[in-house]
């Protein structure tokens, strides 16, 4: 591979995205990842760059309601998409139930993976369908701790807050029974 020489023409394109409910149009280098667009062009630094290779999950956002590693998403490939980041989970001052549960169950320490964990959990709660550990393939499976672990396994947490992440997500997925 040869990197473009200095002075080579830089290809740009206009990308229009709805980010956390707000329409944003930007002219970006066509090589820009969605993560860099969010962090460096829109100043939304909540989504984290832990590896930039889709290995850690710290950059997880929702694209059209589905979980995605923003570092692996080319911004221009998602023109017109609706993107939700950790900054868009709360409703004004009212935290998303997952955010509230992560605080109450102490589901993080350093917190660097937390934006990705939260977006991943938010996507998981609504995505339905069976996973590799689903026993009953008819209908949407109950989010047992085993299902939650399976579905959250793309999000690394080096502080090892996994036990409390499962507790927090379980509390939200069974909301109503939670005090």
């Amino acid at each position, binding site marked *: 591979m040869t990197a473009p020489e200095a002075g080579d023409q830089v290809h740009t394109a206009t990308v229009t995205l709805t980010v956390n409910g707000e329409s944003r149009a930007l002219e970006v280098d066509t090589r820009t990842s969605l993560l860099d667009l969010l962090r460096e062009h829109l100043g939304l630094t909540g989504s984290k760059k832990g590896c930039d*290779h889709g290995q850690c999950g710290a950059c997880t956002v929702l694209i059209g309601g589905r979980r995605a590693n923003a570092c692996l998403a080319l911004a221009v490939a998602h023109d017109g998409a609706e993107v939700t980041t950790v900054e868009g989970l709360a409703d004004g001052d009212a935290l998303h139930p997952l955010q509230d549960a992560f605080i*109450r169950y102490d589901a993080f320490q350093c917190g660097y993976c937390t934006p990705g964990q939260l977006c991943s959990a938010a996507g998981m709660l609504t995505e339905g369908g069976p996973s590799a550990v689903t026993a009953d393939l008819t209908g949407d499976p109950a989010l047992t701790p085993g299902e939650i672990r399976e579905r959250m396994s793309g999000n690394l947490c080096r502080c090892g807050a996994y036990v409390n992440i499962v507790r927090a997500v379980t509390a939200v997925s069974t909301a109503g029974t939670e005090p």
Partner: protein
Amino acid sequence: MTAPTITSIRAGRIGDSPQRPDGRQKVTGEFAYSSDLWLDGMLWGATLRSPHPRARITGLDITGAVAMPGVFAVLTHEDVPGRETYGLERPDQPVLAIDQIRYQGEPVALVAADHPETARRAAGRIRVSYREEPPLADARAALAPGAPSVHPGGNLVRHVRVRRGDPDARAAVVVTGEYEVGMQDQAFLGPESGLAVPAADGGVDLFVATQWLHVDRDQVAASLGLDPDLVRITLGGVGGAFGAREDLSMQIHACLLALHTGKPVKMSYSREESFFGHVHRHPASMRYEHGCSAGGRLVYVKADIVLDGGAYMSSSPAVAANAATLGIGPYEVPNVVMDSYAVYTNNPPCGAMRGFGAVQACFGYESQMDKMAAALSMDPVEFRVRNAMREGSVMPTGQVVDSAAPVAELLRLVRDRPPPPARDTGDLRSLPGGVSNTTHGEAVVRGVGYGVSIKNVGFSEGFDDYSTARVRLELTGGEPSAQVHTAAAEVGQGLVTVLEQIVRSELGVERVAVLPADTTIGSAGSSSASRQTYVTGGAVRAACAEVRSQLLARAGDPAAGSPGNRPPGLAGAAGLGDLVALLGKPAEATVTWRHRPTAPLDPGTGQGQAHVQYAFAAHRAVVDVDTELGLVKVVEIATAQDVGKAMNPQAVEGQIHGGIAQGLGLAVMEEIQVAGGVVRNPSFTDYLIPTILDMPPVRLDMLELADPHAPYGLRGVGEPPAISSTPAIVAAIRDATGIPLTRIPVRPEHLTATQPDEGPDPPSAMIMGRNAPHRVPFDPRS
């Protein structure tokens, strides 16, 4: 403590589990990590690193980089205005390589440009000519006569000798063993990053994720040739630490670039660069000989431990001391001959990681304890209990353990936990590796193993270990409110939560704010060695006592002037109305607080009151092992730990979970593969850390046996969980398979019928990805 600790108390006191004051920011994305910092007009820094582990630099041409549009500076070692080297214990590490390369990834040159990709490409335009030399890659070989020297003066960084009792003691039953520990990485999720801003006074302001602001400042100032007062460091948000931020990474580099260009400069490492940007846990090669009476009492231990320090010293001398002084474990042994060596090689530099020398030794001595129990046909727990240290026991250093040492009780607690249910053999989901295997678990066997550990808390060997805290109490909107200022690094452990709890308890006020940590106040020491709640917590408590004393003096209370006297909180003592009246002007105190002194080790015998406090934890691991596929599933960990006083039970529980996760990683998956000094797996695809699927349920018993010497009786909690979890898991795998595992991490091929050669010889699949074959990791054109 198996149920989650949930509280709705926001304004918690000591012993409560209030919510983290930074929790809301962390869940909303507002918390500013060092990688999130931004200033308009800032430049981006990039580092050119050596692809070779050992070489002479024969030429360096920066003209191609300088000529690139958007490049503002290209710097080499000749541009370092002050001391050209740095280091925690001795400045032996060049800021930028001077004429030779001692490890792969050593920084050679820096670039500042207006875009991170421009900086990266410009670094690739720097032409460096290397004359490669054969790397010294084996730590024991480095000690052999005639070995090439990595540094002038030879390859021995430190030899710690501990001698107790009769060196020629004999015993009825003798077992020997040789053990190896691979190189573990801290692998924090937030890579090294920071922002340096040049100041009008000729100084620099640095915002960075670190563990110890003041040693950063002193090293940065020395290399910049500036008075330390002109280097002001403020803690940026820290995305995990675990020891890896105790040494400098980009601090001096970013400041050099900022001062050279007159512009703010941000540096943020990629994941790959991060693997080269910080020290790792020392690999260890250990030989143990245990002698025991026929009745099961340890008579002697002889051991030597060789720790591969890599190319630079970092904190290797202290790691070697920990391995030596803690290296026989929490047992009573009358005769000890222990030699611990830290050595230079051309491998990646190693230094602090959670457990700090105690981890490596624990794998050795606990493996030996199992081996001896088997030789005696004794139960491994019973054998440990019979030899367990207790309060009043004498360490191999001659130091008497003068607070609780409930080693036997911790072991009994984990042993007596009900076992987890047997595996449901009809449920493929319960298999090691999950449902997608090529077999159906026909060869899965279960095993149980134990480990117990000892760790020192705080800095040792006579180090002047202190922290500084300022507490200010004033009226804000007519209400008493307190501010706490220290330089102690919140790295995720929850220190800011605990400091608030201390102030609420001591002063009886609800409104407490912890100010950002910076170098405008005295040092707090490092957020390491499980020490920060002890030492900075002690400093904050002492400052609160002075504030209280001032206010009582204002009220004319005769108890004033004796801050050692601890009356109840002011709100209770004086009444809130009175407190408001007393705070016509603010009350403020700044205190530097020290724990009781320690003493150096005698260089000949290793005798001395070297440590402040000891902490103990025990683990029982239950594993399922698929002996056909070489897969391990940790089914459950039972643990018991004495924490002295659970200042914040929920945070303690989190530390214990996290330590177990990292201990599990070292047991079965985590290793930086180094071959001939070259790192083969600097990515999260190939350096594996435990996922949520790997984390077992944790059954936890927490003891609170107060240490009378420590603030609130507390005992450091951060490291012990990461120490004996590893040997417990390996013991469980041995129990399941009967294979005498002597090297960690245990690999799949160690567990199947065909045993491979030992040593870091990764399969070809380990050579991966974008940068294969990994000889030129930072060349942007690859």
